[in-house]
């Protein structure tokens, strides 16, 4: 499943890289891209509905970038 998040409070570009690396490490997440410039986080989980993995990813996003919206 693919999810795109819109984030508004990403501080610095290297945080984008941190989020990307941390989310990619979560078991169940196949792909993660964070774009500092378009303010978007894009994740792909391996099974159609891997809630646990997505929850973990969202926690990381919240930690570094505050609130987000799902697109």
């Amino acid at each position: 499943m693919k999810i795109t998040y819109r984030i508004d409070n990403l501080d610095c570009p290297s945080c984008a890289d941190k989020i990307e690396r941390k989310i990619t490490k979560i078991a169940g997440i196949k792909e993660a891209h964070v774009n500092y410039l378009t303010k978007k986080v894009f994740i792909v989980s391996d099974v159609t509905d891997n809630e646990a993995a997505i929850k973990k990813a969202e926690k990381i996003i919240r930690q570094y970038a505050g609130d987000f919206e799902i697109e």
Partner: protein
Amino acid sequence: MIRLNKKQKITIFRITISSVLLVTALLLSDEIARIIFYIASYLVIGYEVLLKSFRNILHGDVFDENFLMSIATIGAFAIKEYPEAVAVMLFYETGEFFQEYAVEKSRKSITDLMDIRPDHANVVSEDGITLVNPEKVKVGDIILVKPGERVPLDGIVIEGESALDMSSLTGESLPVDIKLSDTVLSGSINIYGMFKLQVEKPYEESTVAKILELVENTSSKKAKTERIITRFSRFYTPIVVISAVILAVVPPLVLGYSWKDWIYRALVFLVVSCPCALVLSVPLSFFSALGAASKNGILVKGGSYLEALAKTKAVIFDKTGTLTKGIFKVTAIHPERLSSYELLEIAAAAESYSDHPISKSLQQEYMEQIEKSRISEIREIAGHGIKAVIDGRRVSVGNEKLMEMDSVKWNHCDLEGTIVHVAVEDEYMGHIIISDEIKKDASKSVKELEKIGITDISMLTGDSKSAAYHIASQAGIKKVAYSLLPHEKTDYVLKKLDSMKDKEKLVFVGDGINDAPVLAGADIGVSMGLLGSQSAIEASDAVIMDDLPSKVPLLIRLSKKTMRIAKQNMAFAISVKLIVLIAGAAGLASLWSAVFADVGVSLIAVLNAIRLLRKNI
């Protein structure tokens, strides 16, 4: 100018208060009062960084930039460098503020440019006009487009007249007049009149949706330079921080040097430890370049292609629809044994199922509807033509190769253009000449490419030798390959790729009709226009929206400029940081210069990247 948001206004307020407090502190003579003012000034400007670093340290993130900045400034307090402690935090926040402002501004100008999503369609029905989400509008529905509105779906004008601003689609700012039965592309803006459209395509297949899909997928394709920088930054921070710790502890402990002196040097390191200038400026260069490209009517699918385009060594153009207008017209009919009308009828009938431009021109010239039941057993032979049975007779319509295949004796023609031979029951019936016109900027494109040092330019076509050279000589292209079958075009490109070095890139420019595999095979496939087929747009790496071949040299120039700016930024950021680090270790750099190496450099790099958005490329 963009308006400041609430957070930015608060930041300005904090910067002002903090500066006033700092100046007051500097003017005070009483030691304790001074320290109180320093701390107040520091907290006003730094509380956010302190809070964030506290939060992130709970997650075990010791290389967090907020945490490092907090340690650096608290450390400066500890060694009684009060004004510097406050000033570092103040400059850091000020620099971040400007940097964010600049990034936000460019982000906005680029996203505005790409924001062509229509928010509603005015659907006309018997009950009046209803506002409908464009995705829900059906083919055949009638919609009303008011002045100032964005056309929500592709369609045909059935009532009214107006002029359209198509600049967000093509980069061309000149308005385009529209009248009854003209086709209108979604995404363009209605300038003055009101008109009604009959919807021709569902939203997902409309021009606007195609562009948005392209634009939204661009961000995930990172350029190699971007990836290198990100990787570098992952090592940079830990190395600098560890060096700072060593610098603070080892010389005083082992050699008995002054603690204060060496801790100061370590603090300089901490301030310079954030790789932000690098991590920001390189992707921003690519991002700005993608924005600049779309401003000029070129959609590039990602930074990695700009990187490749900058290394272009050879350019191959397809002829039809790329260098030429792709609008074919019957210019002569040379019949034998039958009338011109009959010859045209046979050719038009045989080609009636094809959507090739040649076929369209035949239909146009014939003007009458062809009874489809008269035609059967249609067989298209790629690169040759069409065989069919018409009114019970076997008919072959195509080029000389088709005639030779059937051993039909055909007559040569001296006229320029594409020659369509016709045979009935293997007997030659004559030929029809169809010509295409060269695009106005074709020769300009070739000249401009040569001007930027790209001299290896060739043209491919499935057409005959004479038609090929007719166009090539007008365009100024010397290398020509003609009479190619679609797969031979691919072979030509692959062979060319083999003869080139890894670092030299090959660009293929085509209109996507029959050349999707070639577009995909070249290093960079550039397709012409949104009118090209969907598969071509998918197979290509960049799309020229307004069909102008002269956008190819423009795109290559832009890519070169982008790489230049990205490299300048990298070299500048790395060398300033390195100099400050070396000077800092030697005790020659102050915290002031360190904070410049951090935020000052970021800001300059960001401004440098934004230069790409300026008009002239």
